[in-house]
C-alpha cells in the first residue's frame, strides 16, 4: 500500500499497463517530454522510451483518430486530451469512428482505446477550461464513460479502462487531483495522504467499470453523484444532519442501476447532483430511470442540483459551482416535501 494523490494513481495505472503489455502506448500534448500539464504521465517517457510515450502536435482530431487506427491494428492506446474542453475537435472521431467501429464491422475491428481528460470546474478556468461534458458521451451508444472520485478508484478504473476492449472516456475531476475537494473553496485543501481512499495498493488491480460505491450509508435520502460532487454531497450531509445515502456512481455508462434502485427503494427520496449544465445533463437520465424503476417507492419529487444553463462563468465561479450550501438546501427541501 502507498499513499498517492489522484495524479500519482493515474500515472501508476499507466505505468503498470505499459509494463505488462507492450501494446499499450501513451500520448498527447506535452505528455511525453514534459510528463503532462497535470503531471499524470511523469517519467513514462524516460522509462518506456519515446516510442511508447510521446508528444503530439496540438491536433485533437488527429490524436483520437490515430489512436483508433492503432487500436484497430492491435495496439491499446491511452491518450490524453489536455482538458475535456479541448475534445470538441475530436468529437467527430469519438462519435462517428471510435463508438461505431465495433458495431459496423461486426466486431472485426474494435476500438480499445482510453481517452483521458481532466474535467470540471473550480479552478477559475472560465468557459473553455471548466466544462463537464460527460452527458455528450453518455448520449452516444458505443462508448463507456467513467469518472473516478479518489486515488484508489482512479488507479483501478484506469487499469480496467485500458484493458477494456471498448473505447472508454475516462474523465478526471481536476479539482480532485490533489485532495478530496468538497466545495469549501475558502478552506485549505485536505491532501489525499490524509484520506483513506488515498491509500492505493501496489501493482495490478482493477475496479470494474459499471459498479457504484456507497460512500455514506443513510436512510433519509439517496444522493446520486460522481466526481467532485461526491465529496460535496458528503459535506452537505454532515453539515445539514440529513441522513443521506451518498452513492458514487463512478461509471455512468455502464450504469449500476441495481445499487441505485436498492437505495431509493430504501430511502424513498432522491437528490441528483452534477456540475454540468442542467438541461439534458446526465441527471435527467438518472431522474427518468429512478422515476421508472422506483416510482412506487418515491415519497417526494426528485431534486436536481446542477450547474446553471449558462456558459461556465469567469466571475462568480462559486455561485455557479453547486457547492455544499446548495446541495444541503436540496437535502432539506426533499425532506420537507411529500
Amino acid at each position, binding site marked *: 500500500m502507498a499513499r498517492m494523490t489522484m495524479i500519482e494513481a493515474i500515472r501508476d495505472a499507466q505505468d503498470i499497463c505499459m509494463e505488462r503489455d507492450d501494446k499499450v502506448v501513451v500520448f498527447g*500534448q*506535452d505528455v511525453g*517530454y*514534459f510528463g503532462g*500539464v497535470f503531471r499524470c504521465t511523469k517519467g513514462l517517457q524516460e522509462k518506456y522510451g519515446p516510442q511508447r510515450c510521446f*508528444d*503530439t*502536435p*496540438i*491536433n485533437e*482530431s*488527429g490524436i483520437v483518430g490515430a489512436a483508433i487506427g492503432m487500436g484497430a491494428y492491435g495496439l491499446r492506446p491511452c491518450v490524453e486530451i489536455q482538458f475535456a*474542453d*479541448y475534445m*470538441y*475537435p475530436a468529437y467527430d472521431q469519438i462519435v462517428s469512428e471510435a463508438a461505431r467501429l465495433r458495431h459496423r464491422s461486426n466486431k472485426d475491428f474494435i476500438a480499445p482505446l482510453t481517452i483521458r481528460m481532466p474535467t470540471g470546474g473550480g*479552478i*477559475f*478556468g*472560465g*468557459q*473553455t*477550461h471548466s466544462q463537464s461534458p460527460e452527458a455528450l458521451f453518455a448520449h452516444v451508444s458505443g462508448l463507456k464513460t467513467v469518472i473516478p472520485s479518489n486515488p484508489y478508484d482512479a488507479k483501478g478504473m484506469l487499469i480496467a479502462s485500458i484493458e477494456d476492449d471498448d473505447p472508454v472516456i475516462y474523465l478526471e475531476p481536476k479539482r480532485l487531483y490533489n485532495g478530496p475537494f468538497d466545495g469549501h473553496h475558502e478552506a485549505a485543501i485536505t491532501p489525499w495522504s490524509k484520506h483513506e481512499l488515498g491509500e492505493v495498493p501496489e501493482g495490478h488491480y482493477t475496479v470494474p467499470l459499471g459498479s457504484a460505491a456507497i460512500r455514506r450509508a443513510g436512510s433519509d435520502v439517496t444522493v446520486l453523484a460522481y466526481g467532485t460532487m461526491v465529496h460535496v454531497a458528503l459535506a452537505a450531509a454532515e453539515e445539514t444532519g440529513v441522513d443521506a445515502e451518498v452513492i458514487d456512481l463512478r461509471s455512468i455508462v455502464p450504469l449500476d442501476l441495481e445499487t441505485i434502485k436498492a437505495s431509493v427503494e430504501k430511502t424513498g427520496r432522491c437528490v441528483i447532483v452534477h456540475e454540468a449544465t442542467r438541461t439534458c445533463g446526465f441527471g435527467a437520465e438518472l431522474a427518468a430511470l429512478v422515476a421508472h424503476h422506483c416510482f412506487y417507492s418515491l415519497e417526494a419529487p426528485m431534486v436536481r442540483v446542477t450547474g*446553471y*444553463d*449558462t*456558459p461556465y*462563468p*469567469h*466571475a*462568480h465561479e462559486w*455561485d*455557479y459551482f453547486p457547492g455544499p450550501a446548495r446541495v444541503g438546501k436540496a437535502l432539506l427541501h426533499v425532506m420537507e416535501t411529500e
Partner: protein
Amino acid sequence: MHKGCGMAPKKAARKQTKTEPSRVRVSEARPGLDPIEAPGRYEATREELTEFYRQMLLIRRFEEKAGQLYGMGLIGGFCHLYIGQEAVVVGLQSAMKEQDSVITGYRDHGHMLACGIPAKVVMAELTGRAAGISKGKGGSMHMFSVEHGFYGGHGIVAAQVPLGTGLAFAHKYKGDDGVATTYFGDGAANQGQVYESFNMAELWKLPVLYVIENNQYAMGTSVNRASAEHELFRRGESFRIEGMQVNGMDVLDVRGAGDAAYDWIRSGKGPLLIEMMTYRYRGHSMSDPAKYRSRDEVTDVRTKRDPIEAAKVLLLEMGETEDGLKELEKIIRAEVNEAADFAEQTPEPELKELYTDVLVGSYG
C-alpha cells in the same frame, strides 16, 4: 544594424536559428504562387517611432502589472502574458486601416491594447469585474470589442482561424476594402482547421492576413518537436498561399512587412501568410516550470533582441533624449497603475448577469 532590408530567400536550413533570424524571407518562386517581393524595413519618423515605443512599453508594463495582480490573487485561473512579442501587434496594427478587423487566441492583452482599447477595461476584465470589457464574463482569454474591430480573445487553440476567414469573407462581401488579420501561434498552426481555412481563403481569394506568432514554443513543446515543416511561413504553399518570415522582434521590420502585406491583399490577390519570428519571455501561463528551455536562452533573447530596447536605441540615435523617454515611461506607469486600481476597486457583475446574453431572449 538599423539599415538593411529584404534579403534574398536562403535555402531552407533544417535547423532553426533562434538568435539571429534573417529580417525577411519569402516563399520561393514556384509555378502557381504569385511571387511577392521581400519588403523593406519601414522608415519611421521620430514621432512615429515614439508612438510605437509608447505602445510597446504600455503593453509590457500592463503585462508586468497583470502578473503582479495575479501573484496577489486578484486575477485567477489562466493569464497568458505577451511580454517579448510586443513589436508584432504594434507594428501590424499601425499598418491597418479603420475598417480592418483583428482576431486572435487567448494571449490577447497586447492585441487589445494595440487596437486602442483602454487599459482600464482590459485589466478590469482580468479581475472579473462588471466594468471589464466583457462585463467580467470572459476573463483574460475571452475579450471582445466591436467598436475597436477586435473580434476576440478565443481560448480554444486555432478556433479563431476559421472565424478570421469568415470575417474576411464578410469584408469582401460588403466590399468595404477591409482585411481580417488572423493571429495564431506556432502550436496552433498544427490544428486541422487552419488548413481548412487556408484552402477556403485561397479558393475564394479572401482578404485575410494570417499571422503566425512563432514564439518558438507551444507550452512546453518547441516548434521542431511538433512540426514536420517547421518553416511555418511555408505552410500555405500547397494551398498556393504566399508566405513571408519576418523578424518579429523589430517593430520597423514588422511594419514594413505589414505595409507590403496589406497592399498585396487589398489589391485582390487573396490571402497571405506571415510568420513572425518572436519570443515569449514569461511562462506559457502563470504556472510554468519552464523545464523545456534554459534560462540562458531567455536571457540571450532579452539582452540581444528585445524589441523595446531596440526601439529605444534607435530613438536616441534620432535625437530623442533619455529624459524624454523617462517622462513617457512615467505617463505609462501612471496609466497602468490607474488601470490596476480601477480593476481592483470596481465591483463584480451582479449575479443575474450570468443569465444574460446566453440567447437573445431569456427562457426558463
